[in-house]
């Protein structure tokens, strides 16, 4: 029995010494087989236990287990060291240059005019408006006459038009959609629409004029619509579009289809009203025209001006886009230079 004990102790010493020198995982595994494997040295020694007495067996068994545990502990420890080193090596080998450019998702841009128009549409849809559309080629009746602009009206000078025949022309404003909407509503209220779209006026193109441009008009008709409601609506729009601090200012003006009529200035978003280049040092930007729908127009649209009233407003999309993005030339919108278009990738703020 003592001899066995000694052999076991010797094995422990030998094994631990040998393990201490191991430098690679393969060797470690070899040693495990050598000492702890089924045919390994430990098993070999313990096989001799059969010759021991019943009292001696547990004692030797105990020693054998201790030796096994000691060897296993060292192997495990070694193994974990090797694994860690291996992992480190792999990670080192896999290291890449994170500053190289990535493979981007494709990203095109909505045209800036449509981007602005969509933003305005979203604001009004949020305020409970629907979007009405109408033809770009219009009759003189819808474009002018039904809007209180009979054939010889002096105000027709304000907008030289592209006629196709005596009675058919390119619409000069989106207002005919208001008339079409009223007629379609057949006298029902409330009407709450905005009408976006392209319009055309004879104008020599330059940095601030384009013969083709986009307008968005709004029309509200109800049993008791007041001018104060118009102011409230426009203030709400201005603050949603240009920021909470935006203020509006109305100046009396004239449009044949509204009475009273007003031009609307919005406090300059860039300088907050202090005065800057954008607002030509006035603190205000002229953005909208508006007014209470003229009773003649209500009549033309099939409403009784004694029963209902309404307001209307209109704005130029190009003008807002020019101001919003600080674009210097309106013609860029229609030249479609890819270097221009690509700049409008960002989401709506």
């Amino acid at each position, binding site marked *: 029995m003592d001899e066995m004990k000694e052999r076991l102790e010797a094995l422990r010493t030998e094994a631990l010494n040998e393990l201490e020198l191991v430098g690679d995982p393969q060797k470690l595994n070899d040693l495990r087989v050598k000492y702890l494997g089924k045919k390994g040295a430990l098993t070999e020694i313990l096989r001799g236990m059969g010759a021991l007495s019943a009292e001696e067996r547990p004692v030797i068994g105990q020693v054998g287990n201790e030796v096994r545990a000691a060897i296993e502990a060292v192997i495990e420890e070694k193994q974990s060291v090797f694994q860690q080193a291996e992992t480190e090596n792999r990670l080192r080998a896999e290291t890449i240059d994170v500053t190289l450019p990535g493979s981007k998702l494709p990203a095109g841009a909505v045209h800036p005019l449509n981007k602005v128009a969509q933003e305005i549409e979203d604001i009004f849809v949020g305020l409970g408006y629907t979007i009405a559309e109408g033809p770009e080629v219009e009759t003189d009746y819808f474009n002018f006459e039904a809007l209180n602009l009979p054939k010889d009206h*002096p105000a027709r000078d304000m907008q030289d038009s592209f006629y196709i025949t005596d009675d058919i022309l390119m619409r000069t404003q989106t207002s005919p959609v208001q008339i079409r909407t009223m007629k379609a509503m057949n006298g029902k209220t409330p009407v709450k629409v905005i009408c976006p779209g392209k319009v055309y006026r004879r104008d020599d193109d330059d940095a601030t004029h384009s013969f083709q441009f986009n307008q968005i008009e709004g029309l509200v008709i109800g049993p008791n619509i007041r001018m104060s409601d118009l102011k409230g609506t426009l203030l709400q729009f201005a603050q949603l579009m240009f920021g909470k601090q935006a203020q509006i200012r109305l*100046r009396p003006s004239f449009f044949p289809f509204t009475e009273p009529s007003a031009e609307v200035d919005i406090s300059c978003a860039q300088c907050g009203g202090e005065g800057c280049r954008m607002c030509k040092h006035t603190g205000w930007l002229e953005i909208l025209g508006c007014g209470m729908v003229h*009773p003649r127009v209500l009549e033309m649209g099939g409403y009784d001006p004694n029963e209902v009233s309404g307001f209307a407003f209109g704005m130029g999309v190009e003008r807002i886009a020019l101001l919003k993005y600080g674009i210097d030339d309106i013609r860029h919108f229609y030249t479609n230079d890819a270097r221009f278009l690509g700049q409008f990738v960002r989401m709506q703020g």
Partner: protein
Amino acid sequence: MNVSYKWLNEYIDLNGYTGEALAELMTSGGIEIDVVESRNKGVSGVVVGRVVTREKHPDADKLSVCTVDVGGSEPLQIVCGAKNVAAGQLVPVATVGAKLPGDFAIKRAKLRGVESQGMICSAKEIGLNEKLLPKEQQEGILVLPEGMTVGQSILDVLGIDDEVLELDLTPNRSDCLSMLGVAYEVGALTGREVKLPDNQVSDTTELASEHLSVQIEAVEQCSHYAARYIKGVVIGPSPQWMQNRLMAAGIRPISNVVDITNFVMLEYGQPLHAFDADKVNHGRIVVRLAREGEVIVTLDDQERKLEPHTLVITDGEKPIALAGVMGGANSEVNESTVNILLESARFDGGTVRKTSRQIGLRSESSIRFEKGVDPARVVPALDRAAALIAKYADGLVLEGVVQEVASAPEEKEIYVSLDKINRYLGTELSKLEVQTLFGRLQFSFELSLDGVFKVQVPSRRGDITRDVDLIEEVARLYGYDNIPTTPIEGAATPGALTKPQAIRRELRKRLTDAGLNEVISYSFTHPDRTRLFPALNGSVVPIRLSLPMSEDRSVLRTSLLPQLLETATYNRNRKIEDLSLFEIGSVFHTEETELTRLPQEKHRLAVLLTGSRTSTQWNRKSSPVDFYDVKGVLETVGEVLGISGLISYVAAQPEDMHPGRTAAIVLETERGPETIGYVGQVHPALQLEHDLQDVYVLEIELAPLYDAANFDIAYKSLPRYPAMQRDIAVVLNREIEVGKVIDAVRETAGELLESVNVFDIYTGEKLGAEKKSVALSLVYRHDARTLTDEEVTELHGRVVAKLEQSFAAELRK
């Protein structure tokens, strides 16, 4: 309308208001002032001087040495370079220390050895607009008229110390095309009184009616014609103060009589015309429409052919003036004129407009008639002018106004209740407040017990015709800023996009997400462009503008692709060769050569891809776009709109497209299959014409997609049983379309076939030029159980047999 501050001050007290303050007040009241311009461009220390002597400069041919009396103890010695300087003249003199425009200070100087103590000025040098001066005053030094005091400031005598307000009038406020109108407006804004000019004509016994008769034949076109007869006038220059006023208003002084008619026109807004009475046959005035073939030579010496709609003033025989537009040469007032027939009339605006357009002449007079003149001022303005002619042209005004009134305007009474005003504006104005505002407008009114105002609107305010016009007057004087801000009352309304609007939004989003940029092109194009891609136009006739700005923009576009190609060329010329673009917009179709009804406006989507799909980067190579990229765009659209099963692609050879790389896009609709567009490569010849490499495009009608689009998602539960995949490669004749092969596979395999995918196409020498190999991957699955190997093998065998039979396919081993 240009309004001189000083002149305006004669009709209303402007004390307390600077020009700028007045401009601000008027703008906030609705009369927009574009600019307030000082007439003084930087002149000080310039006085009236008299040239006493003029000698030649001893050492310079072109210079004179003058002595000039400027009211000091000694005359000044001044060297002058102007040819027209002469002894005895009154001239503007910039004395030492004076300033001229451009910050030019006058100093004592020596010119070729002779001392000069100042400078004799030209009109330009003291900042006058030369165009407004008579010819003789434009050249050389400005020679001033007699009657000025030596030593007086030039600023005073020429009225330069003044500001001019440029009114940008809206079409409804033509009442402000007169100084009096502006005075009434300022009166309404300030609450001050308007002072009317003196138009008292002194009494004579000789009756005008003995020399003059008036008859209106064209009663529709002329509602009132009044005339006076003035005897023995002396034509000469008008007084300097009047010339100053006219120049401030931008009108060139001509002679006393003409200047007075212009002056009074500006004062009252009533155009006047002076005839040489001795050239008017029997002093007869007949107002009528022109006769066929009649002509008149107008004041500008042009012969004008008259149209039957032209309103003319005749002397009973021949036309002597184009009513409201221009006088005739045959009755012109000139230096030898002695007797004047002075006209003040109300002509129809539309008639005057037509004539002035036709002859291409818009004058201060025609503009005022076009906008409508105040009927109540026809005679007062005539009287005012007659009184001024008596005073400044030594005329004798004969007794009586000779006139005919074809129709008198009705008195305008408008009712508006306090309640309506407040309901309309959202205000809480009191009776007293509204009364005050009407009072300031000088509108007389009666107020009933129940708060209804009965307002008499003066005829000068032709723009006010109904209650809302009065409400606007109240609102603008009360101040738009004082109107409260309220939310709309009543039930909330749901806001939403329509289906087509939502689809266009989604298309924009998907296409930009796929890297395409959106463009917007002009709707007007060159006629040649509408001839491209005829398959996209059907049998339409391009719609032509009646007065295009250029041939390049003379017709309405009939398809989107031609301009998308133009855009591609534009960018390629700027070295941008990789382009992915789309446009959503309307095209205009009609079959009529002359439009009698509105054309069809069709919403379309067009896509253009050219160059590389992705740019070269360190981790990938660039690869050129091809047909399948542009087709893929449409396939994605089809999936997003839930209609991919309804769309098929049929090889087609439309004009201007590559005959081997183009497909018609066919949509299965309720009416059967419809071609809704084309997808493919642009014909190489057209690419070359546009200087472009391979360009892949599509254009598609959107309305059929709006109808067909199906947003419902039919959820299928996830598969519970395994699938079996079988690959198959067959060799086919090259012209056999894989689409047909797939159809045959689907049809044969039936419900158990979950999907079929083309994973390889191979052509090569090994197969022979006429052959191709197509590799398909088929996935079979049963919803309710696991498929057995045997049944899949059996089914797959039938698929293979079908391909062998229908397409003479050879199975590749």
